[in-house]
């Protein structure tokens, strides 16, 4: 029995937290637009948003690797900016996670905004509230269940990602060696005690997360997100 290395757990938690924060900022306006627009392009955008749900993580990871590699425009720009590569770095993992977990943030928020509907927003406008005030004081609190769903699901999903991370991040301790990669490596090197510990933590955590979601959030169809 060697030392238990909890570093990967900590790294995964950091990655998931950063991803959740970024996703809420990016997904909220998009989910709002999807919920209320009558534009024809809506179906196209919805399909693109849902892509990570059906694409094999390795496919997604492959494209991200190509897009973020130092030879590409984006990757090259990042190297010029930070002197480090985007691939095989924590920043690269964040980008990949945001894309990989995108539908898990957008869909619950969109559903929540749709169920809030226009009615309370119009009422708020006739009471003198600006669109931003209406968003903060009416739409957001009414869509709270959607936010809880989005936060919990993106956090859990990011924690559990493997294929994309492996493709984009590799296995660098303290930087890209997240918990799922660590478990894989422990199994490869036949250190089942370590694998057991980390797996059990993830199993219990995931169960608790889903329990919270289903308890708090019976009305927003989580099933739609989980496929």
């Amino acid at each position, binding site marked *: 029995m060697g030392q238990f290395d909890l570093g990967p757990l900590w790294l995964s938690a950091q990655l998931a937290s950063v991803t959740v924060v970024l996703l809420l900022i990016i997904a909220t306006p998009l989910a709002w637009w999807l919920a209320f627009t009558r534009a024809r392009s809506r179906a196209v955008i919805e399909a693109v948003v849902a892509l990570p749900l059906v694409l094999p993580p390795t496919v997604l990871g492959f494209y991200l690797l190509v897009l973020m590699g130092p030879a590409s425009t984006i990757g090259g720009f990042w190297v010029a900016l930070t002197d480090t590569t985007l691939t095989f770095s924590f920043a690269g993992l964040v980008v990949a996670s945001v894309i990989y977990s995108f539908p898990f943030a957008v869909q619950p928020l969109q559903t929540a905004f749709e169920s809030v509907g226009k*009615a*309370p927003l*119009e*009422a*708020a*406008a*006739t*009471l*003198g*509230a*600006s*669109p931003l*005030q*209406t968003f903060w*004081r*009416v739409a957001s*609190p*009414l869509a*709270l269940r959607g936010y809880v769903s989005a936060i919990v699901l993106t956090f859990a999903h990011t924690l559990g990602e493997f294929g994309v991370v492996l493709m984009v991040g590799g296995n660098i301790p303290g930087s890209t060696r997240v918990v799922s990669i660590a478990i894989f490596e422990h199994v490869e090197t036949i250190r089942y005690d370590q694998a057991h510990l980390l797996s059990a933590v993830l199993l219990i955590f995931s169960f608790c997360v889903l329990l919270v979601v289903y308890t708090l959030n019976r009305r927003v169809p989580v099933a739609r997100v989980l496929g």
Partner: protein
Amino acid sequence: MTRLELDFAITRGDFELSVAAAIELAGTTAVFGPSGSGKTTLLRVVAGLDRPKRGRIVCGDVVWHDTPAHVPAYERRVGYVFQDGRLFAHMTVEGNLRFALRHARASGPITMRDAVAALDLDRLLERRPASLSGGEEQRVAIARALLTNPRLLVMDEPLSSLDTPRRREIAAYIERVPETFGVPILYVTHDIDEVIRLADRILLLSRGTVAAFGGVKEILERSDLWPLTGRLEAGSILEAVVVAHASGMTELSLDGQKLRMPQTTARAGEAVRLRVHARDVAIATQRPVRLSIRNAITARVDRIEVDETVYVELVLGIGTQSLRSRITREALEELELVRGQTVYALIKSVVLDEPLA
């Protein structure tokens, strides 16, 4: 008095609403018309919730819309009472009222205390909207709209989701708003009884255009508008003053003539509006004696309207007011009625304008 100038067109699918009217906002103006005539759309355009495809809307000296310029709903100060209340479910009643105070675009004379008192909300303040009855919800919605100190209150069938006793109760609150708070009302309804009870003027809509605008009495008595206002229901509207209550009866003065009806809740000295169906008015050429009908009003035959049916309608002048009577053609011939003749109008039943039952 504020003047609301409307001159706009808006398309909703196949339907086009095209309105050109100038309304002096005072008291309550009913927006009346059959369903699909564009009543709600008109309100939404006035409130700024829907944007006309072209046109100009001016309220007092403020231009609300002059395509493409557009003042958004939240800057118009138009209080909106929706059909379904639309209270914020995540706030208490008090939270809903405070929301209005907090976002009001102008300070004005209406305070929390006034609104709570006028709509009897004291005991509801801590409640959540989900626990309120339909009537309570509408009372909160009205108070909430008033707390923004609006230039104008628009109401979209606020009684339609309520049962009859509740309607009567909420109507009594709405009736007091223009006088108590000095806020004019635009009131959408398709119920003529609500118009008679609550409105001073009617904006009559038909198939997306304004068919008529004027005083309630004047509009309801125009026979050319009967297809829209409902002929039988129009009958006549009479204005009378309550003189006294005695032994279960209320005595009214109709241009100096006595009229008695079963006791009402109206106070002595109060002006009331009466509705009389033409079929409830019989005619005698001599003052009748020993008759069960208690109300015999002296009137003058102003007009005799004959159509192809067996009935004729007489328009009788009583002072400055007019009363319609529906009798058979046979009776007309037998009584030898002519224009200008003085007759006795026997009014079998009178409905005071509490007809929301």
